[in-house]
């Protein structure tokens, strides 16, 4: 019964989504207030029914209703409750429902917080979001119904993929989807602006906080995915340039470019049509990512079991959305550009360079991701592009990006006096280069050009990000402090600096070693002694495992005991490596059990990963920066809109 309610709710949600699309758009066109008013009601209703459907599926999992095919395939009686909940989005059908749910939630948020927007504009935004909902609801109902019944019902389920039975992965998809789908709001704002033909600095101001929120969730989602891959896949890498990773990374890169170009559009009324194009691209890449993941056309560790009709549906929808948006863009955007100038040495120039470099980076990732497809279609040869290519290619735009970043932060809008600019930046620049030499040489004992560039860039970003906040702390009484918006920017850039440092150090000084080890023996990796004390059998709720006890010493001094496990999940009969990690801010020590080589001997993968935590810490700090930026008072409330506008005007003329 409950699954049928869910199914029925999905269909009702679809009808409401159609109403949410058609009525407000027609209403906005005709200037009919009553029709525009439908937008909010329909959006709320759509959200409620999607929420009911989502709750029904969750209930089916919690109640172990194995008469539902999806539940029978992806759950099991002894699965811990947390994973019964996360199993809802553990495979294709349910994760699509999560996508729909998140989209409905974003739409509801827009409906609730858009009272400050002109009625016709918010009606159009909600209408466009409704169109996206229609597409995905149709997709779910026609090709991927999570409520399909299994007759006769199974006695027990097939269990959730053991890899997904992990707290990190339980929240990774929701975070990622909030980010991914969040770009639909910027997209809808762009489409609405192009339909109405009205686009001014206010538009950018409305779009900015929404985009930043989406971006910060995407940042967290990607970082969490990377962290999960590190400890759960048992390989110890943090980024594999896998097609599906790239699929989430491309919208992030373009989203980052969008945040920066929105700043120019808001402050100076420039780059308008470019900003629109980025908003369209960011969401199109989210859709492309979905297509790549769902269609299974690309070889990936993440790929779901393949179904050509699904791929075809998404591809059609992708084509309609992207081509429609681009036609509208070609038609409307040229009229929206303004003719204001700026100096060669100005913040505008740096943000322009930021955008160019981020777009190049995205293009490189896109080329590398799609090349296997293109080659296969052109010549029939099946190729793959390895991580070494991405690692090298990606550095090309990234090195100038991080160097320019530190400069751009201290450059004024319109035009900057070169002499005073140099006065601010020369000491940070010298300190950064000195640190770039000292850190690798004295802390890690080896040096190369790339290491100096990496460490110096990291130091450069960190120092230049701290100048403004520190000055604000020591300012004279009565002078204005740093705005939340500027503080957010500094913090996010600081996070970037930490990230660059982590990547540089772990890439250069990380050590990985596969060796054989038996109880009573020791091996040495990166100056640490790993001593296997013994092996033990342990029982989990739905698995049994062999656990090794490994003591780590450095120069005879005890550091930690690491307990990696080799698990055997009882239902799927599949083995899984649960790495043992001694985590620290300065370094991680990582041991994973490989295969049983003989009676008591195991192959182990031992890794020493200095500063690897800085990679995720950096991402976290970046997201925190986003959070601080959206708390800026000019976004806060309608009542203060006027005050905020006055501040903007003052800033713009300052």
């Amino acid at each position, binding site marked *: 019964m409950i699954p049928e309610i869910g199914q029925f709710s999905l269909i009702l949600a679809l009808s409401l989504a159609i109403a949410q699309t058609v009525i407000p758009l027609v209403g906005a066109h005709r200037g009919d207030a009553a029709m525009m008013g439908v937008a909010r009601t329909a959006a709320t209703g759509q959200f409620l029914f999607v929420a009911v459907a989502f709750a029904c599926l969750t209930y089916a999992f919690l109640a172990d209703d194995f008469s539902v095919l999806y539940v029978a395939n992806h759950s099991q009686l002894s699965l811990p409750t947390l994973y019964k909940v996360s199993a809802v989005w553990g495979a294709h059908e349910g994760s699509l429902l999560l996508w729909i749910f998140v989209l409905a939630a974003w739409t509801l948020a827009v409906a609730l917080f858009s009272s400050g927007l002109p009625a016709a504009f918010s009606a159009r935004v909600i209408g466009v979001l409704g169109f996206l909902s229609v597409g995905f609801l149709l997709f779910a109902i026609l090709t991927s119904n999570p409520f399909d019944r299994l007759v006769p019902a199974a006695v027990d389920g097939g269990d959730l993929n053991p890899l997904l039975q992990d707290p990190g992965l339980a929240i990774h998809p929701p975070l990622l989807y909030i980010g991914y789908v969040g770009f639909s709001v910027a997209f809808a704002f762009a489409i609405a602006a192009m339909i109405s033909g009205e686009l001014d600095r206010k538009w950018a101001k409305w779009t900015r906080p929404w985009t930043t929120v989406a971006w910060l969730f995407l940042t967290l989602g990607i970082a969490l995915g990377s962290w999960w891959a590190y400890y759960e896949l048992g390989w110890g890498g943090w980024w594999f340039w896998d097609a599906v990773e790239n699929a989430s990374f491309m919208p992030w890169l373009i989203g980052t470019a969008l945040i920066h170009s929105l700043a120019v559009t808001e402050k100076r009324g420039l780059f308008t049509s470019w900003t629109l194009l980025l908003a369209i691209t960011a969401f199109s890449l989210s859709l492309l990512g979905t297509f790549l993941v769902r269609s299974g056309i690309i*070889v990936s560790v993440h790929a779901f079991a393949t179904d050509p009709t699904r791929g075809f549906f998404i591809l059609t929808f992708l084509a309609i959305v992207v081509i429609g948006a681009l036609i509208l863009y070609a038609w409307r955007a040229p009229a929206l550009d303004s003719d204001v100038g700026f100096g060669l040495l100005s913040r505008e120039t740096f943000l*322009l360079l930021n955008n160019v470099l981020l777009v190049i980076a995205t*293009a*490189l990732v896109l080329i590398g991701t799609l090349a296997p497809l293109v080659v296969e279609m052109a010549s029939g040869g099946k190729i793959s592009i390895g991580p070494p290519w991405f690692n090298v290619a990606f550095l*090309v735009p990234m090195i100038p990006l991080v160097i320019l970043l530190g400069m751009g932060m201290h450059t004024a809008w319109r035009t900057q006096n070169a002499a005073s600019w140099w006065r601010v930046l020369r000491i940070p620049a010298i300190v950064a280069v000195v640190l770039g030499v000292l850190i690798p040489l004295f802390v890690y004992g080896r040096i190369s050009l790339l290491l100096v560039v990496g460490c110096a860039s990291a130091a450069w970003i960190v120092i230049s990000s701290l100048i403004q906040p520190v000055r604000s702390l020591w300012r004279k009484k009565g002078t204005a402090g740093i705005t939340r918006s500027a503080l957010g920017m500094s913090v996010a850039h600081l996070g970037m600096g930490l990230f660059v440092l982590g990547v540089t150090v772990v890439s250069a000084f990380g050590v990985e070693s596969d060796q054989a080890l038996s109880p009573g023996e020791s091996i040495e990796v990166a100056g640490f002694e790993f001593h296997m004390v013994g092996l033990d059998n342990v029982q989990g709720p739905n698995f049994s495992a062999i656990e090794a006890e490994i003591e780590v010493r450095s120069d005879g001094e005890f550091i930690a005991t690491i307990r990696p496990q080799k698990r055997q999940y009882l239902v799927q009969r599949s083995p899984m490596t649960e790495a043992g990690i001694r985590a620290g801010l300065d370094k991680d020590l990582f041991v994973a059990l490989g295969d049983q080589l003989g009676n008591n001997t195991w192959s182990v993968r031992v890794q020493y990963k200095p500063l690897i935590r800085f990679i995720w810490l950096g991402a976290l700090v970046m997201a925190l920066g986003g959070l601080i930026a959206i708390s800026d008072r000019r976004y806060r409330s309608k009542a203060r809109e006027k005050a905020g506008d006055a501040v903007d005007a003052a800033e713009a003329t300052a």
Partner: protein
Amino acid sequence: MKPRQQRMLAVGLAALGIAIAAGLTLRAFQDNMMFFVEVSDVVAGEYPKERNFRIGGLVVGGSMQRDEGSMDINFEVTDTACTIPVQYSGVLPDLFREGQGVVAHGRMGEDNVFQADKILAKHDEDYMAPEVADSLSKHQQDIQEAVVKGAAECRPNDS
């Protein structure tokens, strides 16, 4: 700067950047592209000689061999028509087992044994790499039989 100059600057920079990126991309692509070669083609000698490539197929039942306590492992991979021996040293993926799909990166050794430097197995019981599935379906042989016996008559010389 005037708007027109701005646009010229933007277009110029973008064009320059894209040109550099395209050049580097193509150059580096050459070195990093790895072809997938079917087991039957490998046996027929049609594979890149001086560089790494990928093979894929099923691990032949009973073909896994390792000396006790050693990291080295030997096994055979079949596409149901032909079979090649593979040698690898290191930690195997969790879902690597006899009778299951596998992809290996590496190159052919002098002795006609494929020297793998990386082994990938699927992450999910229902999932098989599309290229492997493709390669298997092409030969239309009895998969069960191939897994148990290997394809005894079709294999590289000296192995």
